[in-house]
């Protein structure tokens, strides 16, 4: 029975080693990005690297506490901890301090504390508790709604702060649902909607509606054989739109095509709906409903894009999609970041030798854009090392999660790795210009006590659960 009791033998040293490497390398880069004068000491708490050192110390204390606690503590207190977190998120909205336009901070003495960071591990705990509870099945609607509420309550509270980046992270938990057996088709449907979303942003809306229409026509013709509908309604309709488009495109006229399209679309749809009902063909109805939903989606995406998102957020999305080649404007951050990374070359300029990332040119260079400093000073060697560390950590966590006997531990593990995956992908992706600039930190790496502590807690609760995997059965 010694195996069960010896925590050193059971704990996963590979994960801990990667954690340590990330923390140390991260701190070195924060030090380099912030070092102001030649003779600053490492523990200068007025500087970011000093504060970060302090937070690393606190993290170690936190780890010790997590390992002292009984592993059963976490499933047992999952809901109360989650409830507490939700209350904190409400409180921060009421009493928090606004920094950079988002009300997401508590200020106590000289320290700032960001509850939204801590909401992630606690959401994972609550979700794991729910999904592992007896008799829970993702097939029941009620269960799905419950899971959705657990995931999106904190997400909504963070959205109103407003902190778009942290909100998007919560979609990571849908990946957990996927692992637990959530319908693959629904996931694919979700993914196609995301693709349609991007297409909507990229192309003319009327063209998309027309496209959807053509697809529907195609399905009608070859699946159902609604020949009458096809020839009687769709073909003349499409011909008219072709003409309108041509008129607009070639002779510079300005028909309000979008609105005409929508109106005609509605009219023709009602006609085909009547036809479908008359002919009593359920397949035809299905196609029609599908068509409606898709068009509705396109229209609402368009509305949301133009009316709900702030201008700079719209801009960032457009720039990433390559629609606005505007390095002077909003692409500025990304370009500066790319210049910094690119200037590092293969081997980098060397520790403390970087120039581009020092304060002025790359914004947020010790938080969201810390990866730039790595790129500049450590070159391709450094950046690929960080990428590899994250890939190894996440795949290692998949392996650990899969070896759990307890559902709770496995689901929690997937929550952890899914959130890490999203943070890693989005953060590195934005720094190298592959994804929109969404301000979320690189786990264990970026400056920030809340982020560091929350991710450390997130990871080490799992490692604790894992070390007790032989005892935890449910």
């Amino acid at each position: 029975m010694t195996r069960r009791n010896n925590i050193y033998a059971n704990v996963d040293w590979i994960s801990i080693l990667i954690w340590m490497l990330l923390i140390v390398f991260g701190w070195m880069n924060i030090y380099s990005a912030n070092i102001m004068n030649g003779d600053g000491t490492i523990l200068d708490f007025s500087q970011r690297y000093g504060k970060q050192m302090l937070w690393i110390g606190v993290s170690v204390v936190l780890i010790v506490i997590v390992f002292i606690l009984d592993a059963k503590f976490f499933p047992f207190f999952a809901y109360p901890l989650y409830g507490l977190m939700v209350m904190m998120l409400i409180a921060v909205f009421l009493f928090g301090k606004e920094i950079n336009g988002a009300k997401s901070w508590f200020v106590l003495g000289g320290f700032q504390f960001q509850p939204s960071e801590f909401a992630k591990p606690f959401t994972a705990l609550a979700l794991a508790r729910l999904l592992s509870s007896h008799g829970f099945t993702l097939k029941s609607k009620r269960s799905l709604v419950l899971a959705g509420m657990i995931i999106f309550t904190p997400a909504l509270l963070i959205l109103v702060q407003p902190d778009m980046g942290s909100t998007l992270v919560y979609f990571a938990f849908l990946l957990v649902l996927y692992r637990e057996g959530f319908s693959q088709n629904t996931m694919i449907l979700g993914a196609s909607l995301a693709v349609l979303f991007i297409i909507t942003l990229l192309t003319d809306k009327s063209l998309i509606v027309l496209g959807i229409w053509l697809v529907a026509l195609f399905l009608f013709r070859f699946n159902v054989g609604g020949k009458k509908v096809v020839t009687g309604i769709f073909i003349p309709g499409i011909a008219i739109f072709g003409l309108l488009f041509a008129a607009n495109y070639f002779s510079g006229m300005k028909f309000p095509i979008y609105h005409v399209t929508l109106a005609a679309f509605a009219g023709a749809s009602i006609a085909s709906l009547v036809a479908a009902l008359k002919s009593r063909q359920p397949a035809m109805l299905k196609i029609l409903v599908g068509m409606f939903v898709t068009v509705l989606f396109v229209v609402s995406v368009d509305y949301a894009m133009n009316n709900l998102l702030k201008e700079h957020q719209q801009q960032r999305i457009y720039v990433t999609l390559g629609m606005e080649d505007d390095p002077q404007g909003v692409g500025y951050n990304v370009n500066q970041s790319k210049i910094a990374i690119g200037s590092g070359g293969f081997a980098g300029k060397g520790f403390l030798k970087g120039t581009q990332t020092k304060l002025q040119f790359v914004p947020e260079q010790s938080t969201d854009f810390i990866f730039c400093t790595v790129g500049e000073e450590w070159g391709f060697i450094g950046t690929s090392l960080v990428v590899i560390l994250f890939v190894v950590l996440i795949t290692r966590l998949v392996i650990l999660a899969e070896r759990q006997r307890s559902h709770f531990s496995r689901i929690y593990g997937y929550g952890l790795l899914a959130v890490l995956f999203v943070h890693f992908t989005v953060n590195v992706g934005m720094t190298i210009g592959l994804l929109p600039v969404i301000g979320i930190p690189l786990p264990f790496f970026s400056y920030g006590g809340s982020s560091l502590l929350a991710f450390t807690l997130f990871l080490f609760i799992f490692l604790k659960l894992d070390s007790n995997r032989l005892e935890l059965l449910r």
Partner: protein
Amino acid sequence: MNLFDNRRYVFIVFTVLIGLVFIVRLFFVQVVESSYKVSALNNSQSHVVVYPARGLIYDRNDELIVSNQAAYDIMVVPNNVRAFDTTWFCNILDITKQNLEERLQRAKNYSWRVRSVFMKQVSFDVAAILQEKMYRFPGFSLQSRTLRKYARPVASHLLGYIGEVDKRILEENAYYAMGDYIGVIGIEKSYENILRGEKGLQIFLKDVHNRIIGSYEEGKYDKPVKVGRNMTISLDADLQEYGEKLMQEFVGSIVAIEPASGEILTMVSSPTVDPNMLIGRNLGETIRKLSADTLNPLFNRALMAQYPPGSTFKTINALIGLQEGVLHTTTSYYCDYGYYYRGVHVRCHTHRAPLNLVESIQHSCNTYYCNVFRRIMEDPDYENTEEAFNHWRDHVASFGFGEKLGSDFTNELKGNIPTAAYYDRYYTSGHWNFLTIISMAIGQGELLITPLQMANMTATIANRGWFYTPHLAKEIEGEPNIDPKYKEKHYTTIDAAHYEPIVEGMDLAVNGGPGSTARIAKIQDITVCGKTGTAENPHGEDHSIFIAFAPKDNPQIALAVYVENEGFGGTWAAPIASLMIEHYLKGETNRTWLEQYVLNGNTKKKKNEEAAQGTEDTGNEEEG
């Protein structure tokens, strides 16, 4: 465990895939692509921040009142400094070698790698010489800044000024960098985002000798500068200057509003400062000195001084009485040098008696308003004093009292209208009645109102029952409209018809002949309507108040004048208001004798300069 176990591989595959995509991309960005590569020399790229010119400010007559002048800061990055010709450098800057060392040390203390200011605002000539020789001084650079320039030495309170950003702003707003300027107060602060524009960035390539050899990547990564947007404000600079001149011997303020639009025409706070003093490298020093002055010239009395309204408030009580139906135009009260009730005595001055409503305004009779107030507070329609008081308070609040009006100033104060809860706490519930709070009948007591609120009340009376939130913004370049909240009419809870007798009384107070309280404010050809007031001040002499609007029909200007520590409202405030109205409506004034009288000021002179700001005034039952 079940058929979903295979999904683990989806996770692993995706993670590895993303990792590969990133590594390939990084390989391209860092190793293959030359466009991102920079030569190994640290200084081969030079980033130059381009500061935009700040937006200009015009007054309502399109007179340019705030413009820019150029100044140059010498910046330094200590890490890049190499040995240089210190003697030449010191000579041109007119500093000693020791001073140079000190300045360098200060920059090092801030940061070795980040640019900071070495010397602020050197003259254009020096900057021109330095510009040519800059390559000989690696690590140093010139940074142009824009400073403000003011066409007239007036309106510093309302225009505000710009100053260097402090640590707090640097932390909270990523746009600003050390040494940047930001609107500190007034219009400069309220419309900072409009006026400042947006900084640009130019990236240059430099050779080993620190000389610029061209723009980096043909300016592909430069960020163009966006010039600040101009704006027109509703201020009448000419009237403002006149107002400041009239107030030069007094402490106090004038606020004038165009009633039909809510636009602020003038906002004087005296003593004032020449805005040209609030620019340049000695700004901090100047501010410190001015703040030490007992009369605090930086304190904007028009927005921040809170005084009891005195007798001007009788207009409000009359309106409420009419609205509640406890007072009629025909109601008359006898006055025997005051109001006596259960041992409380509110004194009144000599005038004929009895008086009806219109005459009560004309003569400002205290007794009349003690009676009116009693009728309001003992209104049989309501259960008790508390309920009646709450109705009274709602009426008062509808004039914009007791809350910030929401003008385009960030430092507006809200004054005070006590609540029933306050009296319940103070006297315990049910143990207070109209007599306890009788001083509010004549505008004394716990009431506190700012001059801006007072001017707004005057505009409301001039409009017979509504107002637009007072504001200065008139036109902003690039925006079709100003804030829609300034286009929204606010109606008081008093019917328009009830205003007529009040306006009539204010007319008679000025034009009613002997016995009227403000005869001195009368102007030939213009029907001025006015009301005097005296705010009691426990720290010293009473404050003199006068509110007025003109012409009576179709009012063009409504204003409130406060003169601190100068006694009765008719003495100084009324003539000042009258001159202001005449100046605004006629463009000049013929009454030199009255002008001289005001300009020479109080012959007693300011013997007793307590910096009475009237913020703590508490009332006692006395004449108003």
